[in-house]
């Protein structure tokens, strides 16, 4: 038989344990989210940058994706964060392209040429590799630049599938979740992307 006193003590203990778990849980979740974001942020920036050719805008898209993930999906399982984060990011990239398309139409209509705004210099914007000889740096830059240009030329869905699978390293299932399509579609888009890129880049790239 449980005495009233011991029952009360147990109740208090359970209550304090719950409180402790709630506080610890929030802190733990914050730490997990911080680690997750730190792990994906650089790759996400480069993926966004390759997609839209503008680092400043890419930064904004990545930050928006981070904030949306924290605000709306932080209570989801940690294994869901990667596809959710990239889905948000890809949606941001698509919206950006839509806005650009409208903007370009307005520019054409008002008589401004695309070139005036297309002042992106991929070589100047290319990252500065460290720990390699100047020749290696140059080769890597050129190779990456060629790859970036070729990836940009891919159809949107192939581009997404290739970048998520190759650059982010998502599996087929995760890529399907991020793209909002079936796993079969991911396989098809990815296979076509690889085939197209190999043709574009040629034998010398490999």
């Amino acid at each position, binding site marked *: 038989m449980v005495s009233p006193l011991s029952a009360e003590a147990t109740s208090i203990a359970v209550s304090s344990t719950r409180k402790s778990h709630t506080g610890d849980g929030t802190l733990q979740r914050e730490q997990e989210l911080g680690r997750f*974001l730190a792990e994906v942020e650089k*790759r996400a920036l480069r993926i966004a940058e390759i997609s839209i050719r503008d680092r400043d805008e890419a930064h904004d898209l*990545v930050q928006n994706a*981070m904030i949306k993930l924290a605000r709306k999906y932080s209570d989801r399982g940690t294994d869901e964060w990667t596809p959710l984060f990239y889905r948000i990011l890809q949606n941001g990239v698509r919206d950006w392209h839509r806005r650009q398309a409208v903007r370009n139409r307005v520019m054409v209509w008002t008589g401004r040429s695309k070139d005036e705004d297309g002042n992106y210099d991929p070589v100047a914007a290319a990252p500065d590799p460290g720990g390699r000889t100047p020749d290696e740096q140059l080769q890597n830059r050129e190779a990456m630049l060629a790859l970036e240009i070729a990836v940009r030329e891919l159809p949107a869905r192939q581009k997404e599938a290739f970048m998520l699978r190759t650059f982010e*390293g998502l599996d087929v299932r995760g890529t399907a979740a991020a793209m909002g399509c079936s796993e079969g579609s991911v396989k098809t888009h990815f296979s076509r992307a690889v085939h197209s890129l190999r043709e574009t880049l040629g034998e010398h790239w*490999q």
Partner: protein
Amino acid sequence: MSKADDRKKSTEDDLFVQKAREMFEDSVDSLDGQAQSRLNRSRQAALAELDSGTVSLGRWTQWAPAVGAAAVAVVAIVVLNGNPQEDPIAMPDASQAAGDFELLIAEDSFDMLEDLEFYSWLDIDALEAGESGTGADVG
């Protein structure tokens, strides 16, 4: 296409993907300090967003006692200063109550109590005189 060709193509695809991944990772590792700093700030902003729900709730709840006390004070003022004409139980006027109290403690009042029989006789006498007078006036 034979199986051998398929295998060769698959291997070449894998090598291509592997090289693309390595190139990409190189470019990621080579991000400059400015970009990394900005990413760090973005991450902190996102984590602050995570905190904001708890913080805003805390800020709201910490004002709850003050808001409750203010509400009680407002209700008390409304009750005490309500319109007397609408109040079925009229509160006595403070000045009137003070006057009544002065009347009670005045020395004359104690004299009146001592001569109670005399004042009672005066009242009865006056009533009787009035009744006879009224009847004569009316009649």
